[in-house]
């Protein structure tokens, strides 16, 4: 195979020649000139014939290969936080990134996490490499949390679970698996969806298209559109679904709607692909938030599920999550798992251990697990309270008769306010409320004390700006 690669290289001598030409060509350009690094301009015969004399050699070394590299655009989500940090106004409010804050708008480390870390410190555990698939205790705990410990898929060993770098990393492993084994298959993603979904599938070279999801007229789910678009997709497509607390909108299908979605997916022989980043965080109940996934699994369907512990255990920066592939047999699951590992090895060899140990300790200890459930209810509860207060403030202030109840119907950290880009800009520029330009606010970053202020800002932007 190595020799095949070599012949590949020698089959394209022009490629290497163009490198040489470009290098020589670059010496003639002013350093300020930004052109594409390895552009296809034809060689200039005079340069080709010139040998590397002492002077040109020196200059060639100093010209950078990266001459033509331009600044990447700022990340739309993480860029909001950066802008917020730079703002000096005392009234500023960061409703950008989805990281939970307590009522004092401070980051919150869960008590169970602190306890777990202390346990780990006392035990003085080593830092040896995990295996490629991650910490076994974590993989077991995470699959049981998702499907329920007594779920047939687990008892029959039909789930391939591999620890991943939070939700992003887990999605990326699955995307690479799709690219490898289903070349040309499409992933259907909701419109809108989490901003990074598209990047992940793009970089993994998996084609995607969108299904209708958000209905701006009702500020709710465009269910007919969703079903229709899933139905129209080529058979055997992957359908990316948010297990609960849809990001960006906060709008989830009802249980009846989930049944119909499962129907159409089965009918079209599609593969469901769940992104579960908020289990426990949406309703406050771990089991309730997993019901959509369990519904599909109960139908005997094969499916993929990416999980993240960033929000529900507050382990954002530890990058802990998992990819689960439910297969129709234990043998298939074993094979799939081995291929997921093969994808992970040249990406990062094996996943980081710290977050995995925390999760395994919390879920594995009955007392800590109960405490976690209580803390999660508290966090989800705070968000529900904030939604109520915001709704009350808006309803009291707004005499126009506009229906703000969508704030109560939506679930999870985010709310799609229905504000457009110009209105969102007004929120930021006039009111120092930082949010993403599509009108999404993170309620996790809102305190009860600030609801009135936010209501004023929303009212102003909605009614006075177009």
């Amino acid at each position, binding site marked *: 195979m190595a020799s095949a690669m070599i012949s590949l290289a020698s089959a394209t001598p022009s490629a290497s020649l163009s490198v*040489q030409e470009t290098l020589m060509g670059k010496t003639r350009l002013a350093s300020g000139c930004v052109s594409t690094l390895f552009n296809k301009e034809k060689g200039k015969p005079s340069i080709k014939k010139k040998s590397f004399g002492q002077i040109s050699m020196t200059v060639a070394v100093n010209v950078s290969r990266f001459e033509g590299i331009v600044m990447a655009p700022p990340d739309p989500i993480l860029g909001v936080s950066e802008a917020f940090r730079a703002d000096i106004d005392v009234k500023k409010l960061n409703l950008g990134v989805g990281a939970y804050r307590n009522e004092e708008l401070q980051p919150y480390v869960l008590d169970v996490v602190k306890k777990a870390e202390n346990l780990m410190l006392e035990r003085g555990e080593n830092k040896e490499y995990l295996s490629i698939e991650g910490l076994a205790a974590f993989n077991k705990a995470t699959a049981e949390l998702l499907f329920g410990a007594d779920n047939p898929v687990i008892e029959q060993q039909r789930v391939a679970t591999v620890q991943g770098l939070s939700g992003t990393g887990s999605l990326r492993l699955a995307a690479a698996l799709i690219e490898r084994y289903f070349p040309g298959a499409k992933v259907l993603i909701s419109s809108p969806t989490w901003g990074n979904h598209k990047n992940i599938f793009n970089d993994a070279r998996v084609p995607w298209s969108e299904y209708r999801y958000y209905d701006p007229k009702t500020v709710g789910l465009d269910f007919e559109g969703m079903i229709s678009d899933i139905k129209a997709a080529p058979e055997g497509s992957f359908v990316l679904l948010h297990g609960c607390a849809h990001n960006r909108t906060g709008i989830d299908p009802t249980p009846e709607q989930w049944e119909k979605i499962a129907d159409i997916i089965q009918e079209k022989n599609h593969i469901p692909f769940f992104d579960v980043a908020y289990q426990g965080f949406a309703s406050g109940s771990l089991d309730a938030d997993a019901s959509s996934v369990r519904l599909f699994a109960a139908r005997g369907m094969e499916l993929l599920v990416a999980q993240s512990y960033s929000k529900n255990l507050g382990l954002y920066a530890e990058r802990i999550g998992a990819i689960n592939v439910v297969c129709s047999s234990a043998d298939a699951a074993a094979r799939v798992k081995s291929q997921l590992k093969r994808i992970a090895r040249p990406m990062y060899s094996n996943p980081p251990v710290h977050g995995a140990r925390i999760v395994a300790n919390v879920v594995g200890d009955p007392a800590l697990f109960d405490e976690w459930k209580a803390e999660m209810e508290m966090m989800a509860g705070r968000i529900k309270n904030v939604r109520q207060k915001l709704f009350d403030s808006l309803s009291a202030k707004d005499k126009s008769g506009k229906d703000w109840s969508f704030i109560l119907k939506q679930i999870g950290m985010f709310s799609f306010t229905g504000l457009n880009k110009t209105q969102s800009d007004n929120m930021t520029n006039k009111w120092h409320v930082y949010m993403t330009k599509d009108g999404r606010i993170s309620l996790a970053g809102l305190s009860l004390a600030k609801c009135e202020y936010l209501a004023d800002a929303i009212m102003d932007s909605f009614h006075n700006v177009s």
Partner: protein
Amino acid sequence: MAGFGKAMACREHVRIRLGTRFMSSSSSSWWQSVEPAPKDPILGVTEAFLADPSPDKVNVGVGAYRDDNGKPVVLQCVREAERRIAGNLNMEYLPMGGSVKMVEETLKLAYGEHSEFIKDKRIAAVQSLSGTGACRLFADFQKRFSPASQIYIPDPTWANHHNIWRDAQVPQRTYHYYHPETKGLDFSALMDDIKNAPNGSFFLLHACAHNPTGVDPSEEQWREISHQFRVKGHFAFFDMAYQGFASGDPDRDAKSIRIFLQDGHHIGISQSYAKNMGLYGQRVGCLSVLCEDEKQAVAVKSQLQQLARPMYSNPPVHGALVVSTILGDPELKKLWLKEVKVMADRIIGMRTMLRENLDKLGSPLSWKHITDQIGMFCYSGMTPEQVDRLTKEFHIYMTRNGRIRFALNHEYRTLTSTPAWQASIPAMLDIWQMLSTRSRGLPRLIAEAKPQIVEEVILI
């Protein structure tokens, strides 16, 4: 066995055609045609080792340091750093480029404490998922911004290098490196390959303690390599996974890099804290690319972040905090340097002791290569079949290319006290006899030698 690594990397997944997508019955699977992936040649060894119930088993495969009792080592400075950071910090997302503090300190290690490049902000650098992640990010970056290029990889090299550049879809070539007869560097063939490569080629270089051979160029040879790189306009990408761990002195271990920097090369570097800080499972490392000026460094960094975002969004915080806590505190940093030197000295001591013992036996052959080689690995020259036999019959686990990690006293004591070991000696003599027919100096001596020599040499 050098080719084995490549073979493993290449004997890969099968592309499945469309037929499998149209399965409709629930008893068949979408994943019908997914074949079991081959075990990773290195990490698979530890998996097999862990699964082995034999009490006599020894793992000289994966490159993880062990203390005199055979236990994994957590450095004192690391424990202290963890005590300090426990419970204090929140776990907010790091920026996509990772911990700024940790990256700053890490660049100082590679480029020099007072490096002008750091002062002038010419280095685009991001925290990475240890060395693997840094190499992968660079490979993806190379693919995106230099799509016509290939990568020249030494033969042999760490097996995962081939996987990384392959998954990044960058075509690979190898260059000569290891000379099996001398068990040293094949310098003339190496230089020929550098000269014959098209101008402006990308080369992967091991900064120190070459993995798997332990053979490094001398300082003089590095200077020649650097000069030839200038003549050819090649790009040097350094994989430095053992800084401090090789000689005990981080600056000395970075000598190759410093030579290239002095000569004006714009290089790339992958750094890892897996071995030298014992942070294996924390996945902490750094990718850096030296640019023309600050503006370019900012642009390149933004593009590296752009590649990282759809892979893992932002890197894990815990290991980075440990690193920045240690390197940011003069006392802890001093402690770390001391501990790294202890680890490196222990391995150098093992090599010296082994060589002395062999020389003492009055062998006409040269054992110089044992102390010439550096780092924790030894290239034994065993074939995959011989390795398999050692594993199957004697529960000695190692990678099939014959690479052995230096065992330590504890493993030696345990091993030689077992009846299984005593019984195994005639068979091992057998193996070495086979080797001797290929006129490799090492096994010829063993075939003639007494059992205790076999023990010592096998153990390395």
